[in-house]
């Protein structure tokens, strides 16, 4: 399992955002090479985020393209009110929510396949699980979260955003971000007992 960056990671580089801003300006002028560079630079981050939020890796690539289509259409309107990554992740977040909404309407209309029941895994004993099993438990735990809770978890632990940045991305108050994280962690602790604090009740 790859090591996560240390607790006190370096601050998000301003240089990277300046590079993004320069690309956005060129995209706004119709520069397709700049658009391709921007696409390649953010592709995997967007792909993972949409995939993790929706639980549909096969739809994530189209989701990324929908996000970048918005960038192509709206780059001239990007007002530098936020970092470029915050803007991109905000578009991706809303796109992922729309994918989930369409999925929900599909099931409601056609009921072609019953909605999968949430999976309640048996308890994983601390110290007796290997890496793959832990990842499976994490996957089960993440599926028990709402999409909005999953978004906060991913944006925090994988993308390293501050809670203020997350509030900007998902367009909600900071306290809502903290609340969603609290609930998400509580649910994940139920799926991953090795994450429970000693003495906490189950």
């Amino acid at each position, binding site marked *: 399992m790859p090591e996560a960056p240390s607790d006190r990671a370096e601050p998000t580089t301003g240089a990277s955002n300046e590079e993004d801003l320069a690309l956005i300006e060129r995209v706004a002028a119709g520069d397709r090479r700049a658009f391709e560079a921007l*696409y390649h630079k953010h592709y995997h981050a967007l792909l993972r985020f949409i995939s993790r939020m929706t639980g549909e890796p096969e739809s994530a690539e189209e989701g990324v393209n929908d996000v970048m289509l918005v960038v192509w259409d709206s780059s001239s309107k990007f007002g530098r009110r936020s970092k470029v990554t915050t803007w991109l992740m905000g578009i991706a977040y809303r796109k992922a929510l729309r994918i989930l909404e369409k999925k929900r309407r599909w099931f409601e209309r056609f009921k072609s396949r019953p909605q999968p029941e949430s999976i309640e895994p048996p308890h994983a004993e601390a110290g007796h699980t290997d890496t793959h099993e832990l990842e499976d438990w994490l996957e089960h735990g993440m599926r028990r979260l709402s999409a909005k809770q999953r978004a906060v978890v991913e944006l925090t632990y994988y993308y390293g955003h501050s809670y203020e*940045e997350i509030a900007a991305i998902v367009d909600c108050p900071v306290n809502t971000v903290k609340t969603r994280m609290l609930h998400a962690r509580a649910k994940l602790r139920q799926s991953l007992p090795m994450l429970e604090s000693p003495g906490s009740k189950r």
Partner: protein
Amino acid sequence: MSAGDRHQHVTELMPWYVNGSLSETETVVVEQHVHGCLTCYARLQHERKLRSLVYGAERPRASPEHGFERLMENVEGRRRARQGARVSAGSARGLRMAALGAAAAFIVLIAAGLVLVRGTAPEAGPFRGLTSADVEAGRPRIDVVFAAGVSEGEMRTLLREIDGTIVAGPSRVGRYTIELEAGLEPAELAALLARLERDERLRFAGRSFGAGEE
């Protein structure tokens, strides 16, 4: 701030302490509290474990090159559709007559049982009619038949691509009626149907003749 409040405050901040995004002030608050609280110290270790798990979770594999190609096809397709719409603005009547003529020919082909073979797979049994398009007032509708073996995920992907919603089907022969977004110009709908004709996921795509006729 009471001890209980500080405890809760630090607990709230922990995820952002471990990802290194807290302010200096908040960092000091967390570190000072954890130094003297065994429960929160242990909780912090679990928080780090969770972050490692999330960070190490398998990433989806896909190629940005392939994705970008498809994106630019979409961008080009929209540009051509807009140009086509502008050109046809002065010949809308001519387009409508051509579309009605194509629809009539399509009905004849259906009646004659003509089949257009595509590819070499005999089991595909494809049937492709001529496309035609009359933009209905409001939301236009088209009929499609998906190719054999197309998964539900691929069907959903296609619907997202064309911004369509299934409003009827499948019929006995597997025909679905799809309602598109309002506001499509005739040329845009014609371009869309032309593109769908070439789509490997479909055996058939054409103007809707109404739901549930089979």
